[in-house]
């Protein structure tokens, strides 16, 4: 059953069309990742769903409510982790959870939430004393303090060190197990691949492609065979087989990997050369994403600047 339904969503800022006819359904308990280059419109879509931004046209429904008109009843059921927003840093971590949690009907115990995000030992410390990554974990804690049915995560792990990212992934996996529907935006392909049941790539305000990570990788159909040949080997015979030779590196995109591999190894045996570092692999989600993002002549995706908060 779809919990989030978006039909022909359009958002214009004057002349600029930030979101141009996005339609999307996200089911209960699903983890959906919205990928896209900077300025592609993914944050605009999420902010419209959060009720932070109005829309130009189109239909939007979350939990049966219109976020554009919904009030406290709606916000009681959702959790929001914004890309960057402050916390009253004069408060202790526990106090922040207490005051932000006060208005939810289904608030979790603050200490329990701090255990979940791995900040239990910092409960009594002032928010200002925590590092940037730890403050981001408070963001996550505040996002889930109200036991949301739908959780919006706008780039939840940007600026995290690898172990903190792992920990957040485990947390998000745990929320999924509890049945929380999660919509996240991310720049990190491995994050989408690891967390998301389905991925939508948004480019130039439109959904370019949508599917499970595996489907997206299959969508290109191709397999890539890569290997190296010894210096001085005669590679003339490789080109007719569809291979691209760059120095000693050879790569070959193919829809029929078995046949291609057979031809390549036959060539190698006939020539008496060894195929070093031979790999047969599917294109990664990143390959798919880059292909889509670049082919739309959009600015290439730039990783966000590392978070600077907490670094005085």
């Amino acid at each position, binding site marked *: 059953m779809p919990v989030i339904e978006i039909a022909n969503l359009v958002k214009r800022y004057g002349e600029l069309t930030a979101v141009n006819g996005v339609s999307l359904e996200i089911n209960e308990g699903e983890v959906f990742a919205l990928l896209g280059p900077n300025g592609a419109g993914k944050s605009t879509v999420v902010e419209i769903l*959060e*009720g*932070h931004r109005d829309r130009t046209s189109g239909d939007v429904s979350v939990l049966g409510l219109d976020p554009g008109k919904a*009030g*406290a*009843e709606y*916000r*009681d059921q*959702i959790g*929001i982790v*914004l890309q*960057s*927003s*402050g*916390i*009253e*840093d*004069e*408060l202790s971590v526990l*106090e922040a959870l207490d*005051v*932000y949690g*006060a*208005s*939810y*009907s*289904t608030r979790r115990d603050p200490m329990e939430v701090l255990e979940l995000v791995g900040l239990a030992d910092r409960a009594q410390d002032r928010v200002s004393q925590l590092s940037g990554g730890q*403050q981001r974990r408070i963001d996550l804690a*505040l996002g889930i303090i*109200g036991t949301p049915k739908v959780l919006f995560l706008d780039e939840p792990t940007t600026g995290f060190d690898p172990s903190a990212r792992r920990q957040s992934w485990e947390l998000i996996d745990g929320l999924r197990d509890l049945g929380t529907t999660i919509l996240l935006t991310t720049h990190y392909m491995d994050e989408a691949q690891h967390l998301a049941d389905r991925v939508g790539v948004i480019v130039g305000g439109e959904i370019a492609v949508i599917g499970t990570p595996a489907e997206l990788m299959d969508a290109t159909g191709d397999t890539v065979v890569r290997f190296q040949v010894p210096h001085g080997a005669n590679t003339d015979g490789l080109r007719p087989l569809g291979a691209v030779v760059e120095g000693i590196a050879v790569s070959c995109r193919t829809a029929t990997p078995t046949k291609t591999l057979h031809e390549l190894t036959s060539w190698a045996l006939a020539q008496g050369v060894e195929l070093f570092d031979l790999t047969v692999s599917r294109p990664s989600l990143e390959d798919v994403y880059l292909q889509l993002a670049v082919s739309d002549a959009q600015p290439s995706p730039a990783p966000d600047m590392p978070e*600077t*908060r*907490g670094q*005085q």
Partner: protein
Amino acid sequence: MSPRASNVALTVVQLRYQLKIFWRTPVAAFFTLVLPLVMLVLFNALFGGGSVDTGQGEWPVRQFYTGALAAFAAVSATYTNLANTVPILRDEGILKRWRGTPLPPSVYVAGMVAMGVVVALIGVVVLLGIGVVAYDLELDAAKMPAAFVTFVVGVAAFAAMGMACAAVVPNARSAPAVANATILPLAFISNVFTPLEDPPGWLDAVGDFFPLKPFVTAFQDTLHPLTDAPAFAWGRLGWVALWGVAGAIVSVKKFRWEPSAEGASPRRRRRTPAS
């Protein structure tokens, strides 16, 4: 699932935490509460010997200053305090974070305003207390209802104007300049820093037009030994209230939860002086 807490209960929670934040921001506490105290002691040491007639009849300068700075502390705790703090909260994204919770926006604003009013009350009580103990100020019980009503009308109006100022300033960096540029020059022509004896007519008119002088004068009337009880200055209070209503309308129409594009700063903040 427990029912959501009532708005009254939530306002109390908000007030408690807003006060906590205020006390943990030493610079704000200093400018709002300690500075008027320092001014009271200094002004009295420098000019406190004589007496002054600001319209209600002669009274000792030191008592004049007690009432004037008590009223000014109330204005600092509401107008200046909110006009400085709210834009910071907005640019930090804190207002936007609150907007995403089920807390009704009116409750959040009520908590902020209540914080300003409580701080104002503390400021007035402390200054009047010092006036009684150190400067022979006599509080007339018959005029205390008027003092209280004047205080309530004043802090409500100046809180509304503070929210209006916060709503119209572009970002947190410009907020202290705007707040101070609006209140400090007025303080000089409103019987706060200097008693006005026979000011030029136009200065009198300017002072009477803006709300600070009517509020300060109405408050001083309730402390002045020569005014008769009950000492309600309804005309002045009405004018102050009108300014308050105008402030409330502007703040409701112009209030923003989103950080301003140019003011969106790194998440760190240090509060700027509040006065």
